[in-house]
């Protein structure tokens, strides 16, 4: 799959995360920590991973779950697997 502009990807991922965590999208800043700042649990992290995989038709190995700690990291990770 072709690389997506980082800003577009960021906004799309922000929308996914805000919906799953049930918070306002503006609270999902690039550096807000998923667990400490947004109150995310492991079930939500998995849902985000599954939603990203579905939306962009990717397979992200579950070892990467621990790297999924902020929107910024999510953009980085998603881009890495889109470009694969």
């Amino acid at each position, binding site marked *: 799959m072709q690389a997506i502009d980082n800003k577009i990807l960021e906004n799309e991922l922000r929308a996914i995360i805000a919906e799953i965590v049930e918070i306002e999208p503006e609270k999902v800043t690039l550096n807000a920590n998923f667990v400490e700042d947004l109150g995310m649990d492991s*079930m939500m992290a*998995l849902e985000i*991973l*599954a939603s990203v995989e579905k939306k962009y038709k990717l397979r992200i190995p*579950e070892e990467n*779950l621990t790297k999924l700690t902020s929107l910024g990291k999510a953009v980085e990770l998603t881009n890495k697997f889109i470009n694969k």
Partner: protein
Amino acid sequence: MLLKDKVAIVTGGTRGIGRAIVFELVQNGAKVLFTYLQSDESAGIILDEIKELRGDAEAMKADVRLYDDAKKVAEETINKFGKIDILVNNAGITKDKALMMMEPAEWLDVINTNLTGYFNMSKACIVAMMKQKSGIIINISSISGIVGMPRQVNYSSAKAGEIGLTKSLAKEVASYGIRVNAVAPGFIETDMTKDLKSKEEIVKMIPAGRFGKPEEVAKVVTFLACERSGYINGQVIKVDGGLAI
């Protein structure tokens, strides 16, 4: 067909209880990938027999002591059959000896194959199950892990550990629609028990008056793997002819 279109992994599927579980699941409509460590020949014979029954199965050589092997088993199952609905952790070994004679290596080997093997396979499959929000894990433990057996501190410890794993994981993943249960067989007619010296003495202790058959364990596994047991979670079902009442 209690398990039509379901996909199952059975570890240690070429002998004893594992072999019976493979056939039982296939005959109930499941597609089964079973692992084995030693005999390519036995695996091939089982695959041929399953083909004759018009069942769908795959065999894979894997060492469940190694997490990388466990991951490959899960990946191969998804590649071949598209998903993982059921994991039956069964692969196990015994190295019976009195504690005073037991070498540390004999302790570790039994713990690694039985307990760590169950951890490795469960970890390798759990995310796929969590994502699909459904799954069944069945751990074949033993009454040795409930009542303890002399000359089996390694095996009893591993089997008791598997029960802890079962209960802990059941609570952890219940909200994802995953059920985790254990089966604790007593004395079953398999290679593992065929060389027991005191068989007659043992039979006297079993209220049923006989050893169990592998199929009698396998049928309980099928029950735990299907919808009929939908509200049973974190349990240990003894299949022991009443031995450990």
